[in-house]
């Protein structure tokens, strides 16, 4: 990889806004998206005509959702680009928005994720590549297999894995934008098996919603009088895809290890420096796999650490303080943008009863079908 463009021209998050993640409803995607964008504009103090470009992340809406939605803020003629990258669509919209600012082309750029859980079309299924599964292996079984392999390798208990969901449901219960807002006990989480040791409450809900962030340059901060303490900086933004790993390699964790390593190197930080992480916890086991893959702790250490509360809000590092995909939800397009919104809230010190004390450095991480992986490292501004 070449030079980190975000090192040359700083990029800040100056506004965040959300529409609550929720089960499928008749609400049009335009209303979901506009709620989030108007929220981000109000949070930033900017006006819509100040926004020079927009990247719209969605995986399921189909062709051209961007302009029809954003034109209802006033059709200013700004650049609009649609971004689809499976579960990482929103993260990729943020990545492209950050590059747009870092390149100097624009000073104020919107990334918005919006989706409705309908009309699934998954290209790899029609790629002409066969397998021998004949429809028996869906994502929860893919991760149930990884969970059994991991638990056998390290002696991790089903209860330790389930603790991920207990923690993230408790966090979601304090997040007004979360789809699931209910504290759950360990016995509740362990009930209702779906596949292997994965239970209903250890699998994320896929619904609908929207999330928006506005990114800006140093020049824009000065021009619009934006308080730099409310404008965390994106230090690095890295996207990678699955390489041809040897048979039996845990793909998602290996891809995560490679991507986060590049993002840490670009940012000049170490994984153990992190105060807050929003991780792709679509299934509980993933949080443990990825914390180890990114080098936050050693192989097999994440299970005992979660039991000790190391990843709670107030612990060594708050992991998925939003509730994560497990509780905040995973409406695809919005998810990665919502992660950046949560880390921004934490780094500003504005997360209320979800606040990780003295949060200075944060990371967002999404994995999408492909597989692809997108990671951002953010730092508090002062």
């Amino acid at each position: 990889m070449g030079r980190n463009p975000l090192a040359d021209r700083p990029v800040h998050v100056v506004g965040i806004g959300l529409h609550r993640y929720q089960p499928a409803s008749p609400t049009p995607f335009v209303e979901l998206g506009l709620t989030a964008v108007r929220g981000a504009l109000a949070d930033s103090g900017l006006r819509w005509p100040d926004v020079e470009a927009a990247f719209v992340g969605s995986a399921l809406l189909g062709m051209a959702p961007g302009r029809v939605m954003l034109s209802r803020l006033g059709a200013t003629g700004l650049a609009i680009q649609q971004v689809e990258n499976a579960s990482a669509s929103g993260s990729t919209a943020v990545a492209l928005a950050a590059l747009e600012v870092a390149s100097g082309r624009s000073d104020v750029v919107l990334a918005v994720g919006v989706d409705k859980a309908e009309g699934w079309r998954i290209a790899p299924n029609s790629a002409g590549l066969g397998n021998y599964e004949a429809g028996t292996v869906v994502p929860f079984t893919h991760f149930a297999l990884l969970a059994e392999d991991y638990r056998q390798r390290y002696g991790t208990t089903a209860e330790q894995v389930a603790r991920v969901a207990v923690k993230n449901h408790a966090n979601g219960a304090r997040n007004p934008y979360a789809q699931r807002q209910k504290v759950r006990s360990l016995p509740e989480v362990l009930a209702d098996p779906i596949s292997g040791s994965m239970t209903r409450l250890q699998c994320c809900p896929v619904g609908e919603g929207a999330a928006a962030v506005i990114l800006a340059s140093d020049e824009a901060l000065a021009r619009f009088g934006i308080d730099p303490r409310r404008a965390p900086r994106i230090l690095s933004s890295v996207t990678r895809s699955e390489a041809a790993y040897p048979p039996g390699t845990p793909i998602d964790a290996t891809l995560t290890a490679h991507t986060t390593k590049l993002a840490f190197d670009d940012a000049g930080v170490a994984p153990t420096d992190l105060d807050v992480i929003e991780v792709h916890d679509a299934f509980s086991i993933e949080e443990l796999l990825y914390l180890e893959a990114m080098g936050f702790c050693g192989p097999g250490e994440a299970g005992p650490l979660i039991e000790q509360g190391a990843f709670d809000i107030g612990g060594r590092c708050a992991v998925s303080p939003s509730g994560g995909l497990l509780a905040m939800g995973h409406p695809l397009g919005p998810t990665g943008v919502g992660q950046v919104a949560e880390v921004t809230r934490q780094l500003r010190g504005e997360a209320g009863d979800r606040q990780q004390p003295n949060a200075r450095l944060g990371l967002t991480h999404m994995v999408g079908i492909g597989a692809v992986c997108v990671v951002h490292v953010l730092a508090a501004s002062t």
Partner: protein
Amino acid sequence: MSAVLHGTRCPACGRVATPPEPYGCEQCGALVGTLEPVELPAAGVVHATATVHRHHRPEPATPFTVVEVVLDDGPALKGVLVAGSDPVAIGDRVRGELQDGRLMLEKVS
């Protein structure tokens, strides 16, 4: 029960794929016409298992057990444990055959 699976081997890098690779080598990009056909015995070692309790289709009936197997000749595949097989655990040897395009596996005792 035993069967062979059809596959391809890349003479340039050694990558083995099954089902046969239709486009180009995933590891080195070698053109599909250069790939050599191979037959892989459907036998290997269990890498992981998961018993599925909820499924979005009526077939197979739940519960059923998905088995990830690393074939003796390389590739890792997922199949389903046949009804009546002894239970399997990580490290057990299994063998299989294709039924309606699905890899059905049983424990080798």
